[in-house]
């Protein structure tokens, strides 16, 4: 079920596009319902989005599986998206990702035992002058060090 609050948010996006082009809002609709659902999508939600935007279910499914930012499987409460592309790599991202995995006792792609965190290696997030960097929620964390990672992890709830 899409909540009324989510419908309100989706409607703001629908209004940006010409009449009859509400499917342009599908990406944001999926982002909104994913957030409300604890960070991931399921088939029921995708069907709801398809119904709400009057789109074929398969079109929603295609979008949900094409773009990196949709999680079609459950994730941790906080998803740490760590860049491992070249500029970050040249500044030590590999070592920091290993540190993170060890500290949390998770491999990239997995959820921590307490369900609080999952770690994902991602491609360039375009904050290369601040590499190594990662993203948690809406926020970028740049110029990371082991100490900074400790601080960030301590702050996660």
């Amino acid at each position, binding site marked *: 079920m899409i909540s009324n609050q989510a419908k309100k948010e989706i409607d703001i996006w629908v209004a*940006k596009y010409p009449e009859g082009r509400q499917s342009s809002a599908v990406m944001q609709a999926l982002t909104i319902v994913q957030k409300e659902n604890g960070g991931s999508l399921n088939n029921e939600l995708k069907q709801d989005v398809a119904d709400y935007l009057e789109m074929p279910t398969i079109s929603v499914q295609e979008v949900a599986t094409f773009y990196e930012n949709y999680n079609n499987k459950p994730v941790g409460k906080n998803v740490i998206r760590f860049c491992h*592309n070249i500029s970050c790599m040249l500044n030590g991202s590999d070592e920091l990702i290993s540190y993170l995995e060890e500290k949390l006792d998770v491999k990239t792609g997995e959820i921590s035992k307490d369900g609080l965190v999952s770690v994902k290696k991602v491609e360039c997030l*375009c904050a290369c002058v601040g590499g190594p960097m990662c993203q948690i929620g809406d926020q970028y964390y740049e110029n990371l060090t082991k100490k900074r990672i400790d601080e960030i992890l301590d702050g996660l709830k």
Partner: protein
Amino acid sequence: MNNICLKSIDKDNPSSLATYETMGGYKVWHKILHGELSPEKILEELKISGLRGRGGAGFPTSLKWSFMPRNQEGQKYVVCNSDEGEPGTCHDRDILRFNPHSVIEGMAIAGYVMNATVGYNYIRGEFMEPYYRFEEALKEAYDAGLLGTNIKGSQVCFALYSNLGAGAYICGEETALLESLEGKKGQPRFKPPFPANVGLYGKPTTINNTESFASVPEILSRGGQWFADLGVVNSGGTKCFSVTGNVKNPANFEIPMGTPFSDLLKLAGGLRKGRALKGVIPGGSSTPLIPAAKAMKMTMDYDSIEKAGSMLGAGSVIVMDDTTCMVKALTRLAHFYYDESCGQCTPCREGTGWMYRVLKRIMDGQGKSEDLELLLSVQDKMLGNTICALADGAAMPIESFIRHFREEFEYYIKHGKSMVENDG
């Protein structure tokens, strides 16, 4: 330095309308609204300025705008490509965060020139801070009556909206971006027809990069010749460069075209103590690598970088010192293209995965003596054989890394480890 797109970066409240106006912002837009600047005059100034598309392809902006059938009836669109994604690039992010009104004004001017009354700024989905800053700026511009219908009684109309992506590098390709904006998978379209004829929702559309739009108000305010004179022949004006990798102070620098690479390296603090330059990727990961000696002789403009064997691209300068293992660096890039290929064209879908797996095999100590020839053969068959340029961007680094650092690859295959100290 930092005189056009990044000129508000050191100011208080850099992204606000008030700051933008104190720097002369919306002066050109007001002139247009007062009927003092014709579309023809704007195109003429842009032509003189030599502004070329800053997203990577370097196509002359004035020419692109002139392709739009401005007198054709029906809806037309202006789209800004803020789907910054090229590894090593992060200057559009700073333009959106610190100077969003320049993008708004640039897009509004474009809309006026091309008779397009609706614009969308497609911002990559991860750029939430830039998105919020842009949204705030957009609200300020609407509240000040600078956007909308019959703006300040001028009959000029321009409605502008932001749009968010969801993590797909390919959406930086303009027709993939349009597909995405229509709510579909971001798979590039066949061209022709070009977007200027059949674009968003099938209507005439022009797509420019964030930095291109952000440059337009200043060019028209100070004159095309002023801008052209900042740069060199064939590369007018200034350009934002992101300098990253093995430098002391990675940062964005907006500098005149034609600046020597060695000066840009100094601006970024130079290399770390005791290190020597090994290679430079000058225009983002899709452009060929240039070895140190050649890089130190090049200047930062379209022609000089091309002469050095690469491309200016998006102005993403990735600096590698002598601790860099080129096999590892290339493997990482190959993984990126494998991950980001949209899967539409077979040479790209299969080729990017094939190249990554061969490189991974070398890194795992399982490399075979024929692997380098195999890599070169695969990249050769990808070049020019796909709908968009992603495959070319994946192929070109392969060829250049192997050509310039072949012995490193051969060593890795033979010994199962890197020949670079500190690595492997």
